């Protein structure tokens, strides 16, 4: 485990814990954000029959770095009417909310920030901070568009947490664990052991579960789209109506914080979906390390598969964003309360019955 390694290195459990908490940020979130922003622009470009950034570096690979340098140089504007304290806290809080979720996400069998048993529960609780940050930003900006955006965002995230939780509940009920690490370990072996295909046991249960797991996956994917404010649910920042919603008034690095939080969030939800339904860090075809008798290779392979799955779902989010129009706020609520929640609820019951068999 990386924690043990760090503990031996520093000789202090506090320092080791501190370092391991920083690790996802520096080893993963920042590089990922750099990559994802570029990916987003390239995906958008190619979907829209153009090339995307091409000037900075080979095929624009340095574009995000140039953007960040620009953002760092920007003046940090705080308008006179802003509520300074909350205005300054809000981006940090939003970022913390999405960053803290990474603590329990197992990147591989040895790379896990905190091995707590309540992993999923913790994520659901801690991402609630994002809502507080968004509301705070909207209120402190003292701008009508920001406020409307923040209100919508809060309403949306709270409504869509319910179907998410119902699906999570069905998984928890079926497996009896809330730990993301245990969930990943359960799905070891080949891809037919993934929960999307009914889980590892080879029984009648597995085959009965498959359709309902698919439904569960679709529900949770749709709701996570809404939770991270992506199209077709990007109403809080609908630029055609609300300019850019709750972060209209932000500039410079504070804006970059929101931006970073958005991309970190995108990966976090994709990682959770991948962990719950697609085997987490488990390879779909067995490990090269096993066949070559090189056990040190396995964690690296696991890391690769985890990132691959996560980025695949992030790519699907981008794909949807550049294809679909945006729902209206009442239709968004209707989609959650009238369709997703009842379906998720029935799905939960059915999965419960099947588990009892």
């Amino acid at each position, binding site marked *: 485990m990386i924690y043990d390694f760090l503990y031996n290195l520093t000789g202090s459990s506090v320092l080791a814990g501190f370092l391991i908490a920083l690790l996802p940020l520096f080893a993963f979130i920042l590089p990922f954000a750099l990559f994802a922003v570029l990916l987003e622009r390239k995906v*958008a470009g190619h*979907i*829209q*029959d*153009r090339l995307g950034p091409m000037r900075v570096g080979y095929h624009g690979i340095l574009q995000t770095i140039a953007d960040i340098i620009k953002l760092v140089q920007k003046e940090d504007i705080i308008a006179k009417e802003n509520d300074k304290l909350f205005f300054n806290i809000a981006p940090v809080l939003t970022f913390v909310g999405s960053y803290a979720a990474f603590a329990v996400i197992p990147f591989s069998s040895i790379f896990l920030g905190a091995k707590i048993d309540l992993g999923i529960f913790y994520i659901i609780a801690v991402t609630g901070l994002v809502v507080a940050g968004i509301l705070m930003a909207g209120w402190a900006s003292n701008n*009508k568009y920001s406020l*409307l955006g923040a209100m919508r965002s809060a309403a949306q995230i709270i409504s869509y947490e319910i179907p998410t939780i119902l699906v999570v509940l069905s998984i928890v009920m079926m497996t009896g664990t809330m730990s993301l690490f245990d969930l990943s370990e359960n799905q070891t072996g080949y891809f037919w052991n993934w929960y999307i295909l009914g889980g590892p046991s080879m029984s009648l249960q597995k085959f009965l579960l498959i359709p309902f797991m698919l439904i569960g996956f679709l529900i949770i994917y749709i709701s996570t789209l809404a939770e991270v404010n992506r*199209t*077709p649910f*990007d*109403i809080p920042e*609908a*630029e*055609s*109506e609300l*300019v850019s919603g709750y972060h209209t008034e932000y500039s410079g690095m504070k804006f970059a914080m929101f931006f970073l939080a958005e991309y970190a969030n995108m990966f976090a939800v994709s990682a959770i979906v991948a962990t719950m339904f697609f085997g987490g860090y488990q390879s779909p075809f067995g490990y090269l390390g096993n066949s070559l008798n090189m056990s040190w290779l396995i964690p690296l392979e696991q890391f690769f598969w985890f990132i691959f799955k996560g980025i695949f779902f992030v790519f699907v989010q981008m794909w949807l964003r*550049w*294809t*679909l*129009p*945006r*729902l*209206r*706020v*009442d*239709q968004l609520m209707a989609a959650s309360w009238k369709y997703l929640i009842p379906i998720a609820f029935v799905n939960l019951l059915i999965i419960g019955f099947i588990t009892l068999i």
Partner: protein
Amino acid sequence: MSIKTEEMVLNMGPQHPSTHGVLRLELTLDGEIITKVVPHIGYLHRCFEKHCEVMTYPQVIPYTDRMDYLAAMGNELGYVIGVEKLLGIQVPERVEYIRVIMAELQRIASHLVAIGTYGADIGAFTPFLYCFRDRERILNLFEITCGARLLYNYIWIGGLSHDLHPDFVRLTKEFIREFKPNLKELNNLLTFNKIFIDRTANVGILPLETAINFGITGPMLRASGLKWDLRKDDTYSVYDKFDFEIPVGSGKMGTVGDSWDRYYVRVLEMEESIKIIEQAIAQLPDGDVTSAIPKKIKPPVGHIYSRVENPRGELGYFIVSDGSTSPFRVKVRAPSFVNLQIMDELCRGHLVADVIAILGSVDIVLGEVDR
């Protein structure tokens, strides 16, 4: 005890991503429900009408371009037809055909912008760029014809500034051939998208009665169900020689006259425009396009109202001549200006997001609203 709620006044614009220019909408909101919309205009006022009074007749043409800058050919055509009638000039066949081709290409270009930006307003950004890609090719056609891409000064009194480029016919045919499948793709991507239909069907329903009372023209009026198109009903130029349909709103996805109908009428009109262009190119006669341009333009005392079907509706010019070389008065009936009046009527009771959907479906060009 009842809770007292206050209405909020929200200024949308003049600098807002989707007011299509410098329009300011003063929205009165009860929560997110619209109770009143007051459009404030005039941010782009350039004294077009007053300006005309000190210009000679041909000098006015470039200024007409700048009104509805997305449909400059149509603007020129309306003005030029009026002055030609005052002068009593008959222009050669070839000129008429080229004018029709240009006006119809311009209609496609203009509708592409309308549809694309409408998609962007609803949140679908990709169709917007697809539309602009196709519009770009039309602008290229205009560029090889007269050198300008947006404001052409191409249609002159009595003729045209240039004849067609030798490649024009070939390139136009090529464009039409490639544009047809693109239009189909656009329909698949946007027009029949479930979310798009949910956002636009049954939103901002404009009953025919109200439309007529407000003097609405163009695709908006047709979407409400009236088959009224000046190209057929008060035909001008050589439009009577072509075979085309007038699409009207059918309420296919909701109610007749909703935003989706207004959008879809524009899509269908592009198909009809393609038909007209194809026929016009096939029949294009030979001739000299500058032969009928008069040396001295000095219409006799009198006045005329000439109107053409622009992409946004009936564009009318009331031209008064006092016998001198410059018009005594030019009054423009701008379709965008008239159509914009309906905003309050259409938006009341809808949500903020619908204002955008409705404004996009009205399809205004601020250059024309303010002049």
